[in-house]
């Protein structure tokens, strides 16, 4: 193939013919802009330049080679070679399918994290800004057991969830319970939770460092194709676990005696106590469960997205959005709301740039609340 190199103004520099591999080289003695033209007549038969343009305008800098590329495609395939334009609609739907899946994937993790928040909010009225840190805690505990101790991630996760449950218990036993006893108001408690969040987050930073880490297993697992979707086995199993936990907890709250007692405590602790419910015990159960569930959410997040000391904090806004959207204080509300948040984040990227993906989800949150001020599953209170 013949290639003509000229300066920007058209002054000829050299003509070369490419070698068998299709490469060529032109020495030049001055940096600057050049024009490189490929003589299409010299192309092999049945071949064409991708995109059709046979001119390139590279800038050459002192001391460095500059490469130009004439990508060739079989003639006639030129149109099809640009699937981004021609085959647009099927690619669009494939992406939409993938994004829907990702929406559920993310939504379920949010839901799991939101469940813990919602439970604790429900029973104690505490808007826990440290909940993100509980999520991080679970992930880091599992890391601790998994990497330095070398235990496989599955038993490590089990241990971490149990530990986190224990820590949840301890947190209420030694901290929040005491505050309740002193009659700390819910606003004051909310600010305290900001303090707890700061404390825990920076403790993590000191102990764990600022870098991103990953578990020893299932890292960068290859995806498998399921129809239009590609997913990793770990995703699918995680989603199964998440859904199971969510449904079990949701039903337990509605059906079991302790679950009902938890809702009673949420409504009116003094009356619950008057009915013979040990309020502190119920709250401790909720903290234990909430801590454990948050930890599980953290581990799931860590499995799919690696670990960092701010991982929970970065999810917190989405968690709040999920809880609120569903209706504060209901378990299934947290599930529905979170999945909607997850779906909107992902699917909105079909139209908005991914850097603004949270904008779409948050805007939907605002819109929904405009029409249903009590959230999707929440109920209006009667007046009077």
């Amino acid at each position, binding site marked *: 193939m013949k290639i003509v190199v000229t300066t920007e103004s058209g002054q000829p520099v050299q003509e070369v013919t490419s070698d068998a591999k299709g490469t060529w080289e032109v020495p030049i003695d001055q940096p600057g802009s050049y024009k490189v033209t490929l003589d299409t007549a010299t192309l092999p038969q049945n071949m064409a330049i991708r995109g059709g343009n046979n001119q390139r305008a590279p800038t050459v800098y002192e001391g460095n080679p500059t490469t130009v590329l*004439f990508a060739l495609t079989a003639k006639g395939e030129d149109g099809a070679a640009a699937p981004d334009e021609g085959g647009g609609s099927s690619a669009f739907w494939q992406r939409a399918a993938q994004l829907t899946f990702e929406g559920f994937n993310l939504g379920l993790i949010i839901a799991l994290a939101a469940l813990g928040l919602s439970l604790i909010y429900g029973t104690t009225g505490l808007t826990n800004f440290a909940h993100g840190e509980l999520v991080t805690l679970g992930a880091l505990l599992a890391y601790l057991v998994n990497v330095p101790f070398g235990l496989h991630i599955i038993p490590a996760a089990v241990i971490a969830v149990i530990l986190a449950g224990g820590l949840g218990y301890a947190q209420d036993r030694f901290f929040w319970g005491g505050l309740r006893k002193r009659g700390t108001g819910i606003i004051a408690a909310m600010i305290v939770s900001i303090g707890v969040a700061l404390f825990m987050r920076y403790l993590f930073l000191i102990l764990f460092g*600022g*870098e991103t880490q990953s578990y020893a297993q299932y890292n960068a697992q290859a995806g498998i194709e399921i129809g239009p979707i590609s997913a990793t086995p770990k995703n699918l199993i995680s989603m199964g676990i998440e859904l199971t936990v969510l449904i079990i907890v949701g039903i337990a709250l509605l059906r079991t005696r302790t679950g009902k007692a938890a809702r009673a405590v949420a409504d009116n602790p003094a009356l619950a106590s008057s009915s013979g419910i040990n309020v502190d015990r119920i709250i401790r159960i909720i903290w234990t469960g909430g801590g454990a569930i948050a930890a599980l959410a953290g581990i799931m997040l860590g499995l799919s997205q690696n670990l960092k000391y701010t991982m929970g904090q*970065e999810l917190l806004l989405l968690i709040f959005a999920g809880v609120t959207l569903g209706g504060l204080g209901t378990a299934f509300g947290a599930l529905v709301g979170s999945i909607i948040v997850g779906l909107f984040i*992902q699917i909105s990227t079909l139209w908005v740039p991914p850097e603004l993906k949270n904008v779409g989800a948050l805007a939907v949150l605002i819109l929904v609340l405009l029409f249903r001020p009590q959230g999707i599953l929440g109920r209006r209170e009667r007046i009077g």
Partner: protein
Amino acid sequence: GGGSDTAAPSSPASAAPSSAAPAAQGDGTLTLGTLLPQTGSLAFLGPPEFAGVDLAVKEINEAGGVLGKEVGKIHTDSGDTTTNIASQSVDNLLAQKADAIIGAASSSVSETVIDKITGAGVVHFSPANTSDKFTTIADQGLYFRTSPPDKLQGRVLGDLIVADGNATVAIMAMQDSYGTGLADQVAKTVQDGGAEVVERVDYDPKAAEFAADIAKIKAKNPAAVVLIGFEETAKVINELVKQGLPADKHKWYMVDGNTSNTNYVKMPKGTLKGVKGTIPGAASPEDFQKKLLEINPDLEDFSYAPESYDAANLIALAAEAAKSDAGTAIAAKLAEVSKGGEKCKDFPSCVELLKAGKDIDYDGVSGPVEFNDAGDPAVATIGIYEYGDDNKYPTKALEYRTGNIEG
């Protein structure tokens, strides 16, 4: 830990804080302040940067210090813009009569404090700012940086991509001045070279996950994927592999921010095989990294350690050359010691030359660092590295390219 604590008789002897004396006079002791992230979203960059400065100060003091006195250093936290404590840290440094401040990592943080620092006649020297604003900013000639030259790096990387025969390229860039600056340059070079940028995604590094971003790239099925970012790239790679864009089917390219020998080792063997990355600096980073590990054995990431190290050395040399530790005096000499003279590669050898009355040209670990009038590096060397089966890159680069940054 590490030996960093030993060499820190930090406060100047004559510390009586008299407000009347402008800091510009100098007090005979060169005091380096650092304003680097101990907290915030760039906290992972803090340890290597601090270690770089520590290493330099250690070497300088072992070589007899500057102007016959040990160099002092004061470390402060720049946080990130969300917490806004940088300005308090600067107050603190100025109160302690720092003559030059090394920092910040984030361009945004630097912007919030540059007026304050340069207003006090102190050198503001960033190892990591890449925003092009600083080229034109009103800095009274006191702002410098050794940060990776993204124009040259972008050109080298872009050319590499074209040379590898990739006709379609997708760019996944972290959304800040570093990422977008580099991405713009890569995109331009790639397009000039005849390949097509089929997708460009700017992502928020704080996002919980990157599934949608990768899905967008996947839809265009590019031959090459350029990953521009920091350590969150590990998450991006997870997602690439998951969505069926592995390195053996699509070529991945990385940049200095994420070409790492520690971040990806836990991934399955061969995940990064054949991936190429560019890192500024002529020498293999390996030796330097060993020295850093003596300073801080916990280091896992080495980003900007060379730049920080060079910054400290250059300031010390400039002070020595100016025979003064005053900020303005140092600033006046910084360009001179960085270029045009006898080449030398570390503080002891350079200072020898200076003492012998020679003109020097310091070539650092991060590259040849020659300052132009704006205080930006003018020349740089970029190494191109390739990952092996063990998800690590070898000490030896495939190729080094040196060039003028502006072209």
